[in-house]
């Protein structure tokens, strides 16, 4: 699936919910389904510290494909982290760098990516792209 196909899929999943409690419950469940984060990566190098919640993000590159694993100490943040991993993981650096992310806005979670919220998510988005850019630069140099 393309980035946009996954975004549309997520938007559709959220469209069935009529209220916020359901949306948050779904996010919390998604956070719970996030694959466990390897404890050896739970260190400052991979930590994105927000004032409200923490996010860990670990990238790896296999055969030109970037994979991300991630975690958060807050459940709702972890749910959003899970969505971002779903959209960005398993893609080429170019796909990641070219992606136009609109689903967050469309499912009503925009405020979670505002700089004032300081929950680590905005920084996580930036970090996802930075890792992709680093992999791309590295592959172009070799």
């Amino acid at each position, binding site marked *: 699936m393309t980035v946009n196909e996954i975004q549309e899929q997520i938007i559709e999943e959220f469209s069935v919910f009529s209220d*916020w*409690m359901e949306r*948050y*419950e779904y996010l*919390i469940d998604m956070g719970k389904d996030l694959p466990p984060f390897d404890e050896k990566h739970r260190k400052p190098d991979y930590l994105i510290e927000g*004032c*409200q*919640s923490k996010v860990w993000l670990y990238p790896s590159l296999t055969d030109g494909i970037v994979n991300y694993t991630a975690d958060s*100490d*807050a*459940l*709702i*943040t972890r749910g959003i982290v899970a969505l971002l991993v779903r959209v960005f993981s398993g893609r080429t650096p170019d796909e990641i760098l070219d992606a136009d992310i609109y689903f967050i806005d469309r499912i009503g979670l925009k405020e979670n990516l505002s700089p004032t919220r300081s*929950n680590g998510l905005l920084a996580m988005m930036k970090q996802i792209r930075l890792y992709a850019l680093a992999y791309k630069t590295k592959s172009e140099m070799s």
Partner: protein
Amino acid sequence: MKLPKSIEEIRSDFPILSSKVYGKPLVYLDNGATTQKPVHVLSVMEELYRSANANVHRGVHYLSDMVSDRYEGARETVRSFINAPKKEEIIFTAGTTASVNAVAFSFGEKYVHEGDEIVISGMEHHANIVPWQMLCERKGARLKVIPFSDEGVLDLEAFSRLLTERTRIVAVTHVSNVLGTVNPVKEIVAEAHRHGIPVLVDGAQAVQHGIVDVTDIGCDFYVFSGHKVYGPNGIGVLYGRESLLDEMPPYQGGGDMVANVTFEKTTYQGLPFKFEAGTTNFTGAIGMAAALDYLTALGREAVAAREQMLLVKATEGLTSLDSVRIYGTAPNKVSVASFLIGETHPYDAGMILDKMGIAVRTGTHCAQPVMKRYGISGNIRASIAFYNTGEEIDALISGVRKVIPMLA
């Protein structure tokens, strides 16, 4: 001790309280962060800009005189509200943070030297930690910290032991913004004064609850913010003892604080103008005074009694929920119920409560050392004002009850 108006009338003085958020009635319980403004304050400020706007202390003209009079009138209102001996001892600043920084710079410049010590408490807001830390770094001085108990009560014996011949100033909060503890500032001041040490009291969380009398407390500096006492943002107060303020150097130079300026030498104005460089926030000061007048008209004791009733209700309701733990159970506390739900993250609960229309604060509340003291990364804080209602406290409790299974 009875309020002169019904709660419905009081709430109609604060139009924002009848807002809806996400289609639900707003339950505003973040008063420790900022308070809402009564129409009285808004109309005073609007009227000021409409009909009396000119720069203070500068013009020979009618409007300037009029606004200068009102600005000085605001100073008198503040003096009277906190029962300071003299109007000249009231300095307008940008807020509590600015006031603490002013003292740390000005007093610190003159009286704090290498090897000296500054005593603060373990329950300070960052605004009453960082300026002193910066002073210590500039001067090579040391910061010492009064510990507190699990209940949130300062250890006064430890405090006495911290005072030495090198202690230059003690800076403590009147009311903890996280724990709600009302500290025994009068005793703290008396003990420090026995050693000849001046005391700054951070009143940011105290003035709005009607419990301040600087003459009774005996402190040397008292600081607070306008926006937490139902007044506007960007205005605050530094009360300082005249004898100290007279000796302290200005910390900002500019217009209005000078007597004579030549390129060789400038002489300064007397109090309070020496510490009010540049065009001051006179609209803010007049707005804040209007807010203090509003509180006075309601009756400070009646306000405090109503807030206490609501705090007891909130505390009882929260503690009746199995997995809820309250932080701060000092016998003498006001307004603040800080809590955590089981092992859950405060941010999650805060976000869900928000969608129910309930505004609380989550995180460290700018008091990271307090969180560290309890070994937590943050908590949820409901902070109460007199305009809150019993129904709103019920909404908080039932909101928290709904959150518990969602996060389990």
